[in-house]
């Protein structure tokens, strides 16, 4: 009798696992941060981001991550300094999380809330607009995340005693494809 009750319970109990409806994988990416200084305008570029989106019940959860040290501004000294000020050895990854409805993949523009973890801090950006372009199976997404140094409690780096501007917008260009 006890065995039958147990078997019935196991049959009726909801599964603890889940089945993703489908996945998105980041195929290509270009992330570019822009730093403004009275004497310099600098862009640091990384193509090393990896990302995944898991869709379930109409909602897709995306995670994009990129190692801080992969950003290249064309000057190794400046890159090392950027890693130092952003505590890149202590917090080596930048991660971005977002959730989008599945239907968003067919839109031409989308606004989404982002959670960005960087330099040991977490910042939230609400309703950041992105443009979507369908290219066959792939979807190309581009937009700018309005990040600032104060969002991540980073002291502005300075050159010749002049600090850089607080705004460090990050231009995002990504190509996603379903898996």
């Amino acid at each position: 009798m006890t065995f039958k009750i147990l078997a019935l319970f196991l049959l009726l109990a909801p599964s603890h696992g889940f089945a993703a409806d489908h996945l998105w994988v980041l195929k290509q990416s270009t992330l570019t941060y822009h730093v403004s200084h009275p004497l310099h305008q600098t862009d640091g570029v990384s193509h090393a981001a990896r990302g995944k989106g898991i869709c379930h019940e109409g909602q897709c959860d995306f995670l994009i991550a990129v190692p801080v040290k992969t950003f290249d501004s064309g000057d190794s000294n400046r890159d090392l300094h950027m890693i130092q000020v952003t505590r890149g050895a202590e917090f080596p990854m930048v991660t971005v999380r977002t959730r989008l409805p599945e239907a968003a993949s067919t839109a031409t523009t989308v606004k989404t809330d982002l959670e960005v973890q960087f330099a040991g801090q977490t910042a939230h950006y609400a309703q950041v607009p992105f443009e979507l372009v369908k290219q066959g199976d792939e979807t190309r997404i581009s937009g700018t995340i309005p990040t600032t140094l104060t969002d991540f409690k980073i002291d502005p780096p300075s050159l010749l005693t002049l600090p850089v501007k607080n705004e460090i917008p990050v231009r995002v260009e990504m190509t996603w494809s379903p898996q």
Partner: protein
Amino acid sequence: MNLKAAQFAFGVVLICLLNADPLHAQDAPATLSGTVADSSGRAVPNAKVSVKNLSSGLTTEAQTDAAGLYTVPNLAAGDYEVSATVEGVGTGAAKVTLAAGSQQTLSLTLTTAPAQREPAAPPVAPSENLPNAPSASASSSSKTEPSLEDLGFSKTETQSNAAQQALLDKRTHMLKIHQRMGLITTIPLIATVITSLNAGGKSEGTASRDLHVALGALTGDLYGITAWYAIRAPRIAGTETRGPIRFHRAMAWIHGPGMILTPILGAMAFSQKNNGEKVHGIAAAHGPVAIVTAAAFGAALLSVSLKF
């Protein structure tokens, strides 16, 4: 219960009530800060930011400063709706949950088009094990969130390296001093070059020559300190030297030996001049060597200051 026991119990309760710290009964206030930007990422100054407590309905208002920053202190823990509006630029809104005593940031992007959907639920707290590594935790509203492991990053890529960070901190600290000392060295260097005009040639007086020597010696000392901080700054293994810093370093191979040779030749020229002789022999190279040295030093400075 007899009367004495009842009196004792009442006394204990009274003492407890009197000793209770009313502050501890409340949550420590939270602070919300962030930036307001337009759709192109530019900071929006003087934007009105409203922070509404969704349970009490209480609204606190703030205004962004010139850098587009806002701060709202002394907020009770709870769910809030944050909105910002600027006429002609657009509106932005988001929901956020503040924990007691927390300092959270929420940045808003203003857009002219209406929002497509409700703001998402508050994001997941970061993992405590991996730095910067969010993962699907028990508090997650979904079991489908991908993790860093899903993306195939190795542990060495995601692991914190405090020793490396300390090395980078030391390097930056030393190079900052190098940079400042280099700038300071420029002042006596220029003054030395200027006073050289009256130090040699047909001038018979020693005052201007002495001033030139003193400034040259000061330049040499400051240069030595500047160079020491660059040479002693820790090297970061596996870093390939790229960009203007290569030129900056190459210039050091010119101004470094020049800074040693110039005072030696200068001392010879000074001695010849004091003996009433015309500067001759190798000492005659003092001027040209000094000019090349100063030029290389200036080029090194400019190479990391200006973008070519």
